[in-house]
């Protein structure tokens, strides 16, 4: 694979691990999504 693919793969793995393992990240993202959805719906 080229260097670019490795960079993308590394970012994907990094984001997945961060979301799953860092406390509060998931709740923060869901809070943002909820705020966006409520804003869109109202």
């Amino acid at each position: 694979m080229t260097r670019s693919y490795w960079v993308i793969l590394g970012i994907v793995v990094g984001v997945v691990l961060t979301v799953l393992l860092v406390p509060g990240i998931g709740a923060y993202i869901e809070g943002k999504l909820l705020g966006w959805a409520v804003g869109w719906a109202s």
Partner: protein
Amino acid sequence: MNDRHTSTLFRRVLMVVGVLILIPLVAIGTLAIASGGADGPSAFFGGGPLVAGELVTGPEPDWSFLGDIGTIELQLLDPPRSRRIWIADYDGKIYVVSAYMDSAIGLLWKRWPAQAERDGRAVMRIQGKRYERTLMRITSGAEVLEGVSAELGRKYGFDGPASIESGHAWLFEVAPRSSGTAGGSR
């Protein structure tokens, strides 16, 4: 030489933009997949079957405490997925509602109402207790629509019975499983 430099620069800009789009997509996708197998929904994403909690049987409880409850967890048996949902009690019975059902986005976003109309068997969890239920869609009945709409309006700013009659919002009675109903509408 100059063209090659421009092409390289363009590819790098494309890659940065792609990565900036990729990061939130991967984060949201990860959360959605992780929530899918969980015991109950999270704040935004649906979840798996409701497993934990005492299963309440016997006579119907006094549902008046639902006036202070914002959302409940509701799971259909088929498919066995759960979500958070508004709830209202009226005249000793309980009701759930799904809005935006007359828009393409609503129909894509909310599949559970159509699934519940096909097979209304459900489990709900309120304050850690589970109740086996059957969802029955309500489309008519002026008194019920008025009463439930008023309670939904008090709690959530819901429009009124016209939105149910027009099909914008789908209203379901959440009846005891033993009542013999198995989905459908009336």
